[in-house]
Structures are given as structure tokens and as C-alpha cells.
């Protein structure tokens, strides 16, 4: 599907290739594998075929090649799928309909780099077909999608990892490990921590245009399939090619796009992988119905007392309600401090590649990725509704605001459903 509009992609360190080159080379290799017997290809210096897996890339835009490489496996790219391949699809190695690709038994792992409105549905469909999944961030477009991915991961016992890896570094940082242990212990009587993320949300850069006029659909693009589960709108190029980020139908602005990078490590450090905020308040102008736009800040509070703040730094006055504050062992009494100090360090996080081989849960598994994405969606719901929200992290519902809940679980265009 269509991703970033950048024309060149760093596939391997120190080496830049175009997307066309990447696909040509990769598919070429895949074709060779279908002709030459497997055992011949595992010669000296080669990875034995027994250690390779059949892979596919769905969504071949800007992030596609990088996402496929990020799997870290000896994966052979057997097939690629993109809704803008109408002019070249052969349903052998190049597809426009991911459903046909997922029917293939020789594909074991799938990298998904479509725009986010497809992430959940394709991830779920891939796991239903028995594949393991590495999915680009943000994991989802709305909260209920994330829960459905978690359920599919459990139902089929597949490996799911979101394509952001900040938590892997964080989990080796001694300072973060100590915070993680304090929070995980549950021994803080009241958490007064305030974590403020200022700037880098690309709010203006990834806003949408409010005055789009319809344009002819390019002949190589399956527009109906591009729109997929989202409400059908008339084609305009700004809805695709990276700038799709600026429209609620496909993503959620820079906040949704950058947020999973910023808050994936936060979630791990602050031990929030199994919960969500209970109060959300935003300062933003009334939102446009289609185009993501400006916002000032979002303040979220957890049941344990912790505050998380997003401060855009791009609109209105900066957030000034609270100062940033961490936690330390000195927040505990002596007895509890000793208990935390006696806690073992957490186990190293499992990479996607290792998880595929060992069937252990990867570091950025579905529940963790879903809880991170939930932060972004809750923030955007507060921005879109202009209302202070109360959220139930167990039921995953906004309390007492039926209209706001319509953004938690959004209807899909048939035949697509969760």
C-alpha cells in the first residue's frame, strides 16, 4: 500500500536503494528459490535453507523495505502486495489483494507497512492464516482494533511484534530498570511522577488539508481497496503517499504516527503494559471532521496517580500545570526500598526473530503495543471531542460519554470487520 512519498530507502546499513530496486532484487531472489532446489542454495557461506523462512511484504511504500528488514530473520521475500500494483500484479509474486497472498502455505512471516487503517485487519487476517507478523507503527487506528489483534494473537498463538523497538534499549538502561522495578513492585503508596514529552509530534507537518477537491484515481491504484475499512471518500493524492497521516480515516496526525516511538519505551519503563490512563484532558481547538490539525497539550492521569503529558509546542501556550517529576528509591520507606533492591532485573526482551524461532513472546507483543497505541488514541479522542474523558482501562470504554465511545470502536465498511 502507499506509504511515505520519499523515493529512496535505506534497506541495509550504508546502502541506499530505491523501492523499485528492492522489490526487483527481492522478488528475483524469491523466483530463483522457486526454481532451484532448496538444498542447492545452502552452500558454503550461505544460510542453510532449513534456517530461512518464507516472507511477504504487504504495503510496499516508504516503510515497506525497512519493515521487512526489521524482522531480523533470514526471510526470503516470496511475495509483495500493494494496492497500487494494479499495473503489474501477477498473483504469483506481486499482489494487490492481501487475502490472496495470505492463502499461500509457503509464507510463514508477514511484514505489514500499509497505512495504519489497515494494520489491525491485515495483522489479524495474517494470524488467522497461521503467519507471524511484524507490523509497522502505529499499531492501530482506534482502540478496539488493538484489543482484536491481542485476541487473535492469543487465539492462534502467533507471534506479533510492532515495528518500534525503543523498549529494547530502555530495558537495558540501569536508570530505566530501577524505575521499572519500583513501578512493577506496586509498593509506591501514591505515584507523583509527571512525565512530559515536549515537541517532535510533527503536528503541522502531518496535518490534513481541509479543502480537498476530488481528483481522478491513478490507473495503477485500487482506490476501493486502499480505503478498505474506512469511510469511502473521493480520491485525492494527499490522502495517500505519506500525507495520509493527516486524515482521521487513515491515521491520526503526527501524534499517532510519532507517539508509538515515544511511548513504547515509556510504557516499559513505567510498567504500564497492562493498563491505560483513567482521565484524559486536551487543550485544542475544535477538531475538523476529516483533517487532523493543531493541538496544544494532552494531560493523562493513571489510577496510581502518575501523570503523562504530551505538549506539542506547536500551538498555543506550552503546558504549565505541572512540572516533570520522576520516581526514585527515596520515594519508598526503608522496608520497601530493600524489597525493590532485592528484586531481580527483568529478563532481556525477546526480539521478533528469536520469538519466531523459539515461540516465546516478543518484547513488543500485541498487548504492550495495544496499550501504547491506546495512549495515542485516547489523546486524539480528547482532542476530537473537546471533552474531558474518564476511561475504564479494564473494560476499555470511556465512562459516561456514549458519543466519545463511538471513536473507541469505529464501524467499518463491509466486508471488513474486527
Amino acid at each position, binding site marked *: 500500500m502507499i506509504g511515505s512519498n520519499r523515493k529512496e530507502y535505506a534497506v541495509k546499513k550504508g546502502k541506499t536503494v530505491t523501492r523499485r530496486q528492492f522489490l526487483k532484487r527481492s522478488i528475483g531472489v524469491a523466483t530463483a528459490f522457486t526454481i532451484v532446489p532448496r538444498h542447492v542454495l545452502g552452500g558454503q557461506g550461505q544460510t542453510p535453507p532449513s534456517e530461512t523462512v518464507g516472507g511477504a511484504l504487504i504495503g510496499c511504500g516508504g516503510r515497506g523495505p525497512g519493515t521487512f528488514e526489521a524482522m531480523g530473520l533470514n526471510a526470503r521475500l516470496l511475495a509483495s502486495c500493494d494496492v497500487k500494483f494494479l499495473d503489474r500484479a501477477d498473483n504469483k509474486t506481486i499482489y494487490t489483494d492481501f487475502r490472496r497472498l495470505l492463502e499461500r502455505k509457503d509464507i510463514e512471516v508477514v511484514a505489514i507497512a500499509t497505512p495504519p487503517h489497515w494494520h489491525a485487519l491485515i495483522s489479524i487476517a495474517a494470524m488467522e492464516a497461521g503467519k507471524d507478523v511484524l507490523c509497522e507503527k502505529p499499531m492501530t487506528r482506534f482502540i478496539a482494533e488493538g484489543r482484536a489483534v491481542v485476541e487473535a494473537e492469543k*487465539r492462534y498463538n502467533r507471534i506479533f511484534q510492532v515495528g518500534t523497538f525503543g523498549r529494547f534499549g530502555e530495558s537495558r538502561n540501569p536508570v530505566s530498570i530501577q524505575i521499572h522495578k519500583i513501578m512493577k513492585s506496586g509498593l509506591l503508596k501514591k505515584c507523583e511522577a509527571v512525565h512530559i514529552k515536549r515537541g517532535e509530534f510533527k503536528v503541522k507537518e502531518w496535518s490534513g488539508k*481541509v*479543502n*480537498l477537491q476530488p481528483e481522478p484515481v491513478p490507473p495503477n491504484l485500487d482506490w476501493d481497496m486502499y480505503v478498505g475499512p474506512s469511510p469511502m471518500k473521493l480520491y485525492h493524492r494527499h490522502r495517500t503517499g505519506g500525507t495520509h497521516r493527516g486524515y482521521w480515516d487513515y491515521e491520526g496526525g503526527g501524534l499517532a504516527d510519532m507517539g508509538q516511538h515515544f511511548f513504547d519505551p515509556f510504557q516499559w519503563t513505567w510498567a504500564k503494559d497492562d493498563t491505560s490512563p483513567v482521565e484524559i484532558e486536551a487543550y485544542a*481547538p475544535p477538531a475538523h471532521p476529516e483533517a487532523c490539525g*493543531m493541538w496544544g497539550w494532552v494531560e493523562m492521569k493513571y489510577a496510581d496517580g502518575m501523570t503523562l503529558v504530551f505538549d506539542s509546542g506547536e500551538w498555543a501556550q506550552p503546558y504549565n500545570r505541572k512540572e516533570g517529576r520522576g520516581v526514585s528509591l527515596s520515594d519508598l520507606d526503608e522496608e520497601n526500598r530493600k524489597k525493590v533492591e532485592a528484586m531481580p532485573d527483568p529478563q532481556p526482551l525477546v526480539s521478533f526473530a528469536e520469538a519466531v524461532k523459539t515461540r516465546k513472546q516478543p518484547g513488543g507483543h500485541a498487548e504492550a503495543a495495544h496499550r501504547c497505541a491506546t495512549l495515542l488514541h485516547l489523546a486524539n479522542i480528547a482532542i476530537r471531542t473537546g471533552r474531558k474523558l474518564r476511561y475504564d482501562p479494564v473494560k476499555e470504554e470511556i465512562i459516561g460519554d456514549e458519543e466519545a465511545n463511538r471513536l473507541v470502536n469505529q464501524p467499518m465498511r*463491509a466486508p471488513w470487520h474486527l
Partner: protein
Amino acid sequence: MNESSSVLARLVGKLPDPDEQGMLSNIDKEAVDSIIAEIHKGGRDSIIGLVDMLVEPGKGDDVKPRYALHCLALYVCKLRDENYRRAFADTLASQLSGERPKAVQGYIVRQLQVAGGREAAPALGKLLCDEELCEYAAQALAAIGEGAAEQLRNALPKATGKCRLTIVQNLGVVRDTKSVGALKQTIGDPDRDIHLAAAWALANIGDAGSVEILLKAADAQDAYERIKATQACLVLTEKLLTAGKKTEAVKVYTHLRDTRTDVTEKYVRDAATRGLAAAGSKR
């Protein structure tokens, strides 16, 4: 132009202009809030006045009235006064007629999805067999929830093609138990999307009487159908177990465990085996 419409036009004109890139980057929250509160004071006339300013895409500039109508939908929800919200929704619903261009009606429907309630369901239901509007109408009904099932159920016998698919799926979304019979018949529909939607709908409703029909669907030879109908079976078992219908759930799990013998379907066999264990079955 009468006085009230000129006041409305003046208020709408004061809303922010898009910047040179077409974005609302230069926007003053307090100013917009104040304008919308003023428009709201104009009541029904203001709402209809805004609708009158809407045009089909490509046929003029209606950026500001579109934005104003959406802001008004948010505003009536924010007031937390049911009378204001219902008055807004009633007025919008009254504008869903054959007179307005379909694209304009589509926009009205999407605003009802934001702020509409049960009162809007009958007007939305009338659009369920309209090829251009059925998707928006069904999405709005599903979002609203209250009153949706009756509208979808009544429209099903008359609907064809895309509208039929949309209705079948959304009967599953709203879990309409009264549609089980119609959905069972729909499972024989020659259109693949429609019969798969019916299978999923029956599963999501959690109908214990659909076990046999769903198992038959799940044994399809077509690869994608087999995957999706199997998923429907697994969803059904989870609903059945939640409802305490263990016998039926065990039957589904046992069938899947015993029929998925090929190595490429081992993950389904494993899922069924785990399901049996979770259900406490000794089979």
C-alpha cells in the same frame, strides 16, 4: 437573504481560513468556540442554514459551513444536555431527503454518527437500500447502537449488492438475535463476501443453533473461505463458552481438532486443542 441568514453567513465567515497549504494552522480556539455558541443560539434555522450552504465536492467552496456543522455536533454533545443534542439530531435527520445531493446527505449522516441518537435511526434506516448512502447510514446506525437493529433487520429483505453485504455485516455488529433465521438463509448466498459476512454475524451473535452450519462452512476447500469460516467457528466457541454453552463449544473445537490434520493447519488444530483444555473437556 433574510436577517437571520445574513447573521449566520457573517458568523460562518468569521471562522478561520485555511492557510496556504489548505490546513487550519492559524486557529483561535476561544474565537471558534464563541462563534459556534452564537450559531447554536440560532437553533433549527441555523442548522438548516448551514446545511443549505453545503455543496457537492468539486462544485464550490463549503469549507467553513462543513467545519461549522461538525463543530456544532461536537458542541451539542459537550453541553451534556439531551434536549440540545436531540434537537440538533432531529433537525439534521429531517434534512435527509431526496432533495439534497447525495454527497451532502452523506455528510449529514456522518454528523449524525457524531451526535445522533435513537431519534435519528428511522431516517438513517431509509437510506439502507441506497447504493450511495447505505454504507454511511449503516456505519452511523452501528455507532449509535440504539434502534439500529430494527432498521437493519427491516431493510435486509429489500437490499441487494453492496447494501445487502453492509446490512448483513452490521446485523452481526449489533448482535441482533432476531435476525438469526435470515442470516442462516444468507449463508447460502452465492456472493462470497455476503455469505462470509453472514457466517461471522452468526458467530458474533453467539447463536448455539448455528454450530452445524458454521462447521460446514469452515470445511470449505477455498483457502480464504476456509480461513475466515474457521475464524467464525472459533469466535462462536468463545461466545458460547461465555454464555455457558459448553457442549456446543466442545463440539466445534473437537471438529476443528479432528479435521485440521494437514501440517499447514496445525495452528488451528492447536487452537482447538487449547480451547478444549480451557473448556475443561476430556475429549
